[in-house]
């Protein structure tokens, strides 16, 4: 737009400097009837639109993202499993390398989901005004939340799944057992997506994420049956505390899947993951509505 027009009053004389382009036509987009959904409910169509936005952004930088995230658990596996493992004849009935593998898959899923719903979601909410812009379209706060969770699950599945394939190729888990373990990757991602987003939506400043990572995720990583059988080191009085740790449950599920074993305790693990995720999403839905409708 170059030359200014002459100072004419509203809707009179043709404007100088206006190029020979006419306004785009007014025209409704034909929407799938199901897309509009019901008020206050998630529309999967719009949740996927949110997912696609994140996917488009991720595709631009996936090479930068995927390498560090992918190598982190692998480095632990090699260093601990082979290095420390050389001094350990066995743990939990297997070699130390085999003991570590399932826990680290759950950790990869946890990390894959966590970065997305913490820093990235916080920036989209508070700095880039992404959600505010989405809410000028038919997208509703519920769709934003669902899209973000779906995206975090996707990322956790990418990282956890890739790591699981490496472990299967290494021979640390039989391929069939790896297939049983695969659905547990997005499940672990779902849990940490729900925990992370509930935290991200409530905190006032981005600095608080260092508490989340250093004082919450790191202790979980160190004490949730990943490196040693936690309960063998604990007085039974502390068992309820151990059972409260969120990562403990995906790790236990994963460990059993690696051995293709079933146990009653797994029902408790499954219930824990689903109920806690559900509760946190219920809270997150209320918070995101309040935050975006202000």
């Amino acid at each position: 737009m170059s030359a200014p027009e002459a100072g004419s009053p509203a809707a009179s004389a043709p404007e100088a400097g206006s190029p020979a382009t006419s306004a785009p036509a007014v025209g409704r987009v034909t929407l799938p009837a199901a897309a509009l959904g019901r008020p206050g409910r998630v529309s999967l169509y719009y949740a996927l639109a949110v997912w696609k936005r994140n996917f488009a952004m991720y595709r631009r930088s996936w090479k930068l993202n995927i390498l560090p995230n992918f190598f982190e658990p692998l480095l632990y596996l090699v260093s601990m499993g082979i290095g420390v493992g050389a001094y350990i004849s066995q743990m939990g009935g297997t070699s130390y390398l085999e003991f570590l593998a399932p826990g680290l898959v759950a950790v990869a899923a946890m990390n894959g989901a966590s970065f997305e719903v913490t820093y990235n979601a916080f920036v989209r909410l508070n700095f880039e005004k992404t959600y505010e812009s989405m809410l000028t379209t038919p997208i509703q706060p519920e769709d934003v939340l669902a899209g973000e969770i779906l995206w975090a699950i996707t990322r956790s599945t990418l990282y956890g799944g890739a790591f699981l394939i490496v472990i299967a190729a290494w021979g640390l888990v039989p391929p069939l057992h790896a297939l049983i373990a695969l659905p547990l990757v997005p499940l672990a991602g779902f849990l940490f997506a729900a925990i992370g987003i509930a935290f991200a939506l409530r905190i006032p400043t981005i600095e608080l994420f260092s508490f989340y990572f250093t004082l919450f995720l790191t202790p979980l990583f160190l004490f949730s049956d990943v490196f040693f059988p936690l309960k063998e080191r604990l007085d039974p009085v502390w068992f309820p505390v151990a059972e409260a740790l969120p990562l403990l449950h995906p790790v236990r599920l994963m460990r059993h899947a690696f051995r293709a074993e079933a146990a009653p305790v797994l029902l408790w693990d499954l219930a824990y993951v689903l109920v806690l995720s559900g509760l946190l999403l219920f809270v997150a839905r209320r918070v995101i509505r309040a935050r975006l409708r202000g």
Partner: protein
Amino acid sequence: MVVRCEQVGKRFGAKLAVDGLDLAVEKGQCYGLLGPNGAGKTTALKMIYGVTPPSSGRVFVFDQDITTHTRAIRARLGVTLQENALIEVLSPVENLRVFGRYHLIPAAEIERRSEELLDFLDLRSHATLPVKALSGGFQRRLSIALSLMNGPELLILDEPTTGLDPAVRLALWSRVRELRRSGTTVLLTTHYMEEAERLCDALVVMDQGRVVARGAPRALIREILAVETLEIELPPGRHVAVLERLNGVRSLRSGTHLLLYAKDASALLESVRGGEPDAHLVAIRPTNLEDVFLALTGTKLEAGA
């Protein structure tokens, strides 16, 4: 009726941001919400496109209640936010594509509309550069392009030209007029009185959450003040005497200056000089909405008789 607000109010804690707003925007109109910062304009818009629920009253858009038909209504309107919300690492073309997907527009259609909008808002020359490399004017035009992606029947513009240089502002005004001519209803907020005067068929003036005047710009000027403004400078202490003599002429006082409103300002000047030979003429000009706003709210200037 494209937009209808019935006694709409919004309360944030103890503060009443919008108080009893009645509004009726007809198809094809360009309708303005005017007022200073904090008057409640943005809050009113947010209630109209359904992102903020009203504390009281009801909002209808396209004759449907916004609280129950939010998604269907928003599919038919476009909003340019006060603050640009662009993806800075992406180019204008990529931003349009992302935004088109929010509206579930099929890929081929997105490409077609993007092409149209790149021309309409003159973005073609910078279409593939990252947004963060673009000037404020370009970014603003891209924001408007995004809100036109779904071919909206109603375009909502929240302070579309704030912070832009005059040339860009004039160019944007001409685009708004073209949109209106092609059948788009426009609802905008502004604190530039000139913008409202040039673009709007009808407007409401808001102050502290309340509508203080409504009507067509020209009619408002005529009814509340008068078409011409006489601005004079008087020796200290003479204002009262002059106003007493002119009995009934609407006025505003600003320091040593006196603004007088009349149908014929030249004739008024004659009669002022009759009794006050020392009156110094500053200007005779058409009365504008700024004068109306000042007269209504007393903001910035001291209210006269």
